[in-house]
């Protein structure tokens, strides 16, 4: 992981993502879900619930979490970890804002 050179790629404006919602970024075979919370923080997770691979981008976003649409697992947007009694995690990705622009941290490894 240390060997990777990370670069920030602009994927669009924060206003492209609804508050308490998500949009998808296609990256080869992988889909990354980019979330925007009620207070305009942005997070990115691989769009796969650790439980049965449900598309987290389609879930309901509340506070710092998203509830998977398939079986209601609650996943932390920051860490990708399942909350409560459930166990498992999906991969988080670095993401930041430059003004209105959303930058996703991706690298060649």
């Amino acid at each position, binding site marked *: 992981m240390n060997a990777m050179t990370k670069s920030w790629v602009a994927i669009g404006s924060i206003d492209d993502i609804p508050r308490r919602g998500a949009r998808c970024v296609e990256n080869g075979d992988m889909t990354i879900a980019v979330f925007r919370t009620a207070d305009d923080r942005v997070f990115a997770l691989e769009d796969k619930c650790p439980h049965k691979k449900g598309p987290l981008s389609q879930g309901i976003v509340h506070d710092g979490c998203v509830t998977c649409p398939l079986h209601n697992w*609650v996943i932390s947007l920051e860490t990708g970890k399942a909350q409560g009694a459930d166990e498992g995690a999906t991969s988080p990705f670095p993401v930041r804002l430059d003004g209105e622009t959303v930058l996703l941290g991706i690298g060649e490894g």
Partner: protein
Amino acid sequence: MKKKLVIIGNGMAPGRMMEHLFDEAPDAYDVTIFNAEPRVNYDRIMLSPVLSGEKSFEEIVIHGDGWYIERGITLYKGHRIVGIDRAAKTVTSDHDVTESYDKLVIATGSVPFVIPVPGNDLPGVLTYRDLDDVNAMLLAAQARKKAVVIGGGLLGLEAAAGLKERGMDVTVLHLMPTLMERQLDTAAGHLLQQELEGRDIKIITNANTKAILGSNYVEGVELSDGTVIPASLVVMAAGIKANSALGSDAGLEVNRGIVVDGCMRTSDPDIYSLGECAEVDGQVYGLVAPLYQMARVAAGHLAGVPTEAFLHADTPTKLKVTGVDLFSLGDFAEGEDREEIVLRDACAGIYKRLVLRDNRIIGVVLYGETSDGAWFADLLKKETDISELRDTLIFGQAYQGGASADPMAAVAALPDDAEICGCNGICKSAITGAISEKGLTSLDDVRAHTKASASCGSCTGLVEQLMALTLGDNYNPAAVSPMCNCTELGHDDVRRLIKAKDLKTIPAVMQELEWKTSCGCAKCRPALNYYLVCDWPDEYADDYQSRFINERVHANIQKDGTYSVVPRMWGGQTSAAELRAIADVVDRFDVPTVKVTGGQRIDMLGIKKDDLPAVWEELGKAGFVSGHAYAKGLRTVKTCVGSDWCRFGTQNSTGLGVRLEKFMWGSWTPAKVKLAVSGCPRNCAEATCKDVGVICVDSGYEIHFAGAAGLDIKGTEVLGLVKTEDEALEYIVALVQMYREQGRYLERIYKWAKRVGYDEVRSQIMEDADKRQAYFDRFVFSQKFAQVDPWSERVSGADKQEFRPMATVTMEAAQ
């Protein structure tokens, strides 16, 4: 080094024993349990509420898997022990697992007594002992046919009530002249029989079963007088016997059960036995309270702490059938040295009888009103001289010394050592003490810390009164369960406050009602969104981010993240042009699966989210609109061909179905709503298991409601008969609006109607013309804003961002 403790059986008695053992001596033993049932320890006496549908299995689990793991216990599920080798000190299971022991506990419980008549081994003949039996009964009940329960004791009557609740036609056969003759006297037995017959359960007493009939499967029961009762299910509940076979095979002393001393030790000092399989002082036990006492005694001895020996005590009996209150304790046979005090109120269904000897209570039977049970039990146990109280004794504690009839006063006046929870042997001071010392505020907390009301639950009311008494104003009755963890308020309070406080946005609700989270959760947000849509149809802006994905993208998400699409087919009718359009969509978008649904629609499955707008556009060209198959809203109106074609049809059922669907489509409801209209009582549209159904008859339209055919199966209730199609539409719309305004989110019509009462629904819709009209008008007003086809909106560009990716990148992401 730890000693090895092996336990055979994982029921309530050994479960309780282990709780005590781990409290007393957590490090004394390595514990291994063999359970013939393939599951964890659950509250067996709550199987009846599971059978009747009032509880789920998950709710009655006592020890989940985690409990065993935390304590390092090895639990072999589904392992039946087939042999004990006392010389080698080992046990062996039917899966060839052998474990050695230092101490062994046999807790194999009991086996149902199967009456020795021909046919008792036919498929369809069940016993009532464990969860597998309950599941088998539930499966059989789905056929909604006739069931016969053999045995009119506690277990048999609970099984009968449960099967009746599940829609079966139930007959109880009882060998004796009155029901529950071991716990009730003749008068109370008759009252109980009347009550059950009033619920449409047939009861035959003095019924001697001669044979169970059937060739490949049970078909009926024949009595010794020649009567034959048809049945597709027979439940044997004629008693239990101790399951002591392992004990006798191992050469232990066995009588009616495995003989143990007052410390629960068998004739082999390294082998203990407890529960229904054990015999103490010539007695075997089947109720939970003495079994829990055995658990305490055995645990104490295993832990090596001084423990009082097991002592026989009378245990009160209660029947777990909702709405039947009965309590019995002690000895109530008639005799020369006995007197009795009886109170009878036939109209109110109340009967109370106290049996006295030497001015002391020795027996209590209460029927219809049992709140004084604990008080009488206390007088009985302490052998209190009642001569001073005699004149008013039967009226109960509240009437002693001129005190008021306040039920709280009665509880307050109970002595500290009065037993509140019979199952667990918990007295009043243990409960009030735990509440004050540990700062307990909820019923669940009290159950967790004291076990009071945690077994059969019949003393829950008393425990709640004690909480109210101890906590005063700080007690907040748990009767209302909160909507979710974001609030203390229940659904009904939230709905009421939304109207009362004029709250018209989700943030306003959360602010005013003091939500504990900043923006709710996936449980409360969709509920609030629905309540606001329903209550303020013209003012509230629907919050799509608070809707479940299916309602946000107007299609049903599938397990692989693709969607299914169901276009509306009014009343289940379609045409060549529509079918062609569907065929073209299937070809063009390579739809993998096409399925005809239960609601008379066509479902296209496996459509990619990106393709949804294009699919809708194609379907829209043929005139299709959304079928709302994804919505908590009006789904489908199923119809038969009615008088248009059918030689039996009495009315135009298809026409009425189409009219209802065109009137009601687009409306949001607390949970999905499915309708059906059948053109005659043959009911080909299966209207009598729908949320709302219509059966057409010559004289008009019989409106039904509150049916279910999903997780639960329930035939509909009749709302009433109306003469014209216009009336049918008006009454149905008013009914659905009433449900829209009162239902809790995700609560189907049958649950809502049961909660508010079928008669209440009938009186508001059938008898109160003003109310009906007002409901109807509010529905019509709401429809002005709801009847917009969501598919064509999105084809025209609404919510574009939902259906396409934000960006496509090609580099690998850093993790």
